[in-house]
């Protein structure tokens, strides 16, 4: 634990010593070299590595200096601590003329440092337009950095990586109103990054917030045109020229300028303005692509390219399309590049290619483009097949044709005169042959197929159909629930019982008419069993005389009927017609009694 404490103390002391050891530097900068009489410039005195005592500004005739406060910055970069004090003064003048602010002494600690000399040109009021541009730069500006090039011209269609930076004064607020756009129609921006990188940088001694985009720029018009870009933004900058507020005095340890920027900046007034940030438009000559030496298969690609990979089948059949793949890498304008062509070209018919571009830098300037297309040969043979691509190389200023390594390919089949399609058709849809290249499919002679008619969903009948279907589904579900309820099932069972009883009684009556005693009693007994089975929840055939006696007394008609039926079945006694009517009556009474009881 003590070791850790010791280490921390050593590190802190090291920082302090490094901070103290650094020599102070003094710099005085005016924010502009020109201003209009009555206006004001800002003089910034920066002392790095210390703080000044009282600053005595020099007296210059017709120039007035007003203090605008001071601020302190402490930075630790790579373990090294540095501090700086910034003193700001307003420099005003009502009289036109060329002024020189002489060098003056600044006391930092026990040392005396001397600033540099500064010139200020104060213009008369009529020269105000000349100073307007400077005033505009107050709100920021753009810079455009093109890739390093050894020529001061570009070719039509050539693309170059570009870094675009918007410089907005630090401590200001900005809201972008548009993307970066070229001011001249002679140039087009490509693949400009959607998001910008933000950083803080110093330029001419002034701190800026820098927004950086990357992209590519290409020339679209031949001639000499300024490469000027613009960005619309609303920028609010601190109103440095407002009347200086006296520095607030604080007691004790807080009476230090270090705390000024924290508390006093809240009261800073801003000037807000909708501005167009522009870059300096240096003219660039755009030359047309030469017509001399232009290859036949040149499709417009400008840059430096080479084959990275390619894939050709080993064998082929005439009229049978197979897939060819190729990847071309390099740098330049890939958007103008078409697929490489098969050679010998007279031997092949190719279909339009699919392509995919993979960028290797944010500007999409370098990368590789992959092509995939189908082709078929017209005649048999064993030719040496290769892929070729022509492009314009802006570095050499000449057209260039590159070729993939030649490969012997075995082609079989009969010679064909016209291009035909042997594959890749949708089975169930009649499709005319695919045209080769950028040729349209022909028009269709039949106006309508039923499946392409205006949507059924938009027809008036569709809603009733859907509603009816939904209603039928709901009704069906309701009906099924209704028919499967216990009451419905019970009712259904009762109905089935009554039908079975009636059927058995009918059989018994018919047996009586035939004087069939066993048949009469058998059917009658079955009717009783069915009725009792439904009442007692038993299987009808399982009901015996013992069950009936258990529930009814001996004198009950059904007890007597079952008993007699059993006797008839086992004893085989015969009865006459009067007996039938007696037992028929007894059976009816017994069953009716059951129904009443139920």
């Amino acid at each position, binding site marked *: 634990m003590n070791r850790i404490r010791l280490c921390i103390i050593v590190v802190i002391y090291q920082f302090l010593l490094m901070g103290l050891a650094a020599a102070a530097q003094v710099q005085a900068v005016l924010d502009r070299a020109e201003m209009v009489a009555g206006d004001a410039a800002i003089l910034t005195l920066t002392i790095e590595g210390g703080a000044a005592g009282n600053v005595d500004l020099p007296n210059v005739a017709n120039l007035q200096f007003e203090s605008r406060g001071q601020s302190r910055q402490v930075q630790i970069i790579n373990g090294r601590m540095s501090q700086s004090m910034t003193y700001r003064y307003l420099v005003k003048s009502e009289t036109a003329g060329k002024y020189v602010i002489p060098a003056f002494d600044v006391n930092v600690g026990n040392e005396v440092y001397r600033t540099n000399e500064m010139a200020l040109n104060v213009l008369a009021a009529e020269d105000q337009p000349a100073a307007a541009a400077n005033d505009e730069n107050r709100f920021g500006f753009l810079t455009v950095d093109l890739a390093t090039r050894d020529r001061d011209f570009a070719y039509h269609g050539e693309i170059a990586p570009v870094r675009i930076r918007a410089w907005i004064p630090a401590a200001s607020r900005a809201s972008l109103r548009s993307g970066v756009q070229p001011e001249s129609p002679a140039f087009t921006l490509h693949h400009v990054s959607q998001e910008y990188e933000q950083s803080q940088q110093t330029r001419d001694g002034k701190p800026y917030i820098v927004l950086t985009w990357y992209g590519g720029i290409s020339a679209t018009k031949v001639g000499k045109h300024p490469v000027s870009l613009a960005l619309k933004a609303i920028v609010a900058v601190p109103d440095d020229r407002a009347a200086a507020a006296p520095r607030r005095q604080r007691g004790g340890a807080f009476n230090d300028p270090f705390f000024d920027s924290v508390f006093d900046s809240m009261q800073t007034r801003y000037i807000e303005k909708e501005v167009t940030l522009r870059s300096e438009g240096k003219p660039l000559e755009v030359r047309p692509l030469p017509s001399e030496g232009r290859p036949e298969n040149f499709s417009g690609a400008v840059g430096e390219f080479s084959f990275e990979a390619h894939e050709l089948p080993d064998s082929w059949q005439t009229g049978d399309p197979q897939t060819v793949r190729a990847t071309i890498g390099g740098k330049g304008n890939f958007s103008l590049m078409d697929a490489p062509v098969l050679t010998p070209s007279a031997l092949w018919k190719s279909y339009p290619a699919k392509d995919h571009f993979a960028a290797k830098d944010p500007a999409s300037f370098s990368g590789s483009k992959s092509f995939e297309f189908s082709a078929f040969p017209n005649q048999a043979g064993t030719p040496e097949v290769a892929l070729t691509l022509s492009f314009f190389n802006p570095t050499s200023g000449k057209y260039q044709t590159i070729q993939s390594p030649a490969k012997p390919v075995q082609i079989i089949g009969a010679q064909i005169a016209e291009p035909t399609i042997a594959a890749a058709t*949708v089975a169930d849809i009649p499709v005319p042959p695919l045209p080769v290249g950028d040729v349209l499919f022909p028009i269709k002679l039949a106006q309508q197929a039923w499946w392409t008619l205006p949507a059924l969903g938009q027809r008036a009948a569709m809603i009733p159909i859907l509603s009816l279907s939904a209603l039928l589904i709901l009704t069906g579900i309701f009906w099924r629930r209704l028919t499967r309820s216990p009451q419905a099932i019970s009712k259904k069972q009762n109905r089935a019982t009554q039908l079975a009883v009636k059927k058995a009684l009918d059989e018994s009556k018919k047996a009586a008419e035939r004087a069939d005693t066993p048949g009469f009693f058998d059917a009658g007994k079955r009717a009783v069993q069915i009725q009792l089975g439904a009442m007692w929840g038993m299987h009808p055939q399982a009901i015996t005389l013992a069950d009936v006696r258990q529930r009814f007394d001996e004198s009950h008609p059904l007890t007597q009927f079952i008993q007699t039926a059993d006797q008839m079945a086992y004893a085989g006694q015969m009865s006459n017609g009067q007996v039938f009517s007696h037992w028929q009556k007894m059976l009816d009474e017994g069953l009716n009694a059951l129904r009443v009881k139920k």
Partner: protein
Amino acid sequence: MTNMIQFFVRLFLITLGMIQMALASSAFEQGNAAYQAKKYATALTHYQSALKEGASANLWYNMGNAYHQSGDHARAVHAFSEALRLQPRDRATHHNLAIARKSLQLPAPKRDMRWATGHLTRNEYAGLTILALAWLTLFAWRGHSTPRGFNIIFNACAAIFLTASIIAWLSHHHAPNEAMIIAPEATLHLSPLAASEVLGKTASGSLVHLGKKHAGYVFIEDSDATKRGWISETAISQLRKW
């Protein structure tokens, strides 16, 4: 008597519909004849009159061809896009649309959620919905009398059909109103006034989402949501919704 009146009203409507179809078909054929005679402007006039009687995929497709041949690639892109909405699997339409887009140097269109549900036409989805509902109706009434395995398979199919149809309908119906830029030099304005600040230009043939309209101007946003602003209504052609 009432039945008799209904019968004659229906007969009249059917006859009227047949006459309309015959007229439209005639205009379509006249357009085809003019196209084959390479009179593309005349062909377009006939196709436009056929379109008033009713749209079809083939009519839009032929219009796309006629626009392309007459050099109006932006309107060709629009017509082929309309044809694809009615006939999304047609290879000829895909091919010709790609050529029209290439003529305008437009990048490949980006796929959105509608791509997944855009392989079937609206009628095919409607047909699937009707099939699913018909089966569910049958199942609701007579499902107990069909084998259990049969019921499971058909119910699953019906559920898939209905879900796909609902997703397709939602994804297309709730998609923003879309239009194609048909003017060759369409400028975007900060506000709906000709004199207002110009924000930039939009590529001819590109797809944009439509917002509110005001005084002959409509607020648009490109499909990447990178450009937005007001544009003259004459510079766009609205795509029909699903």
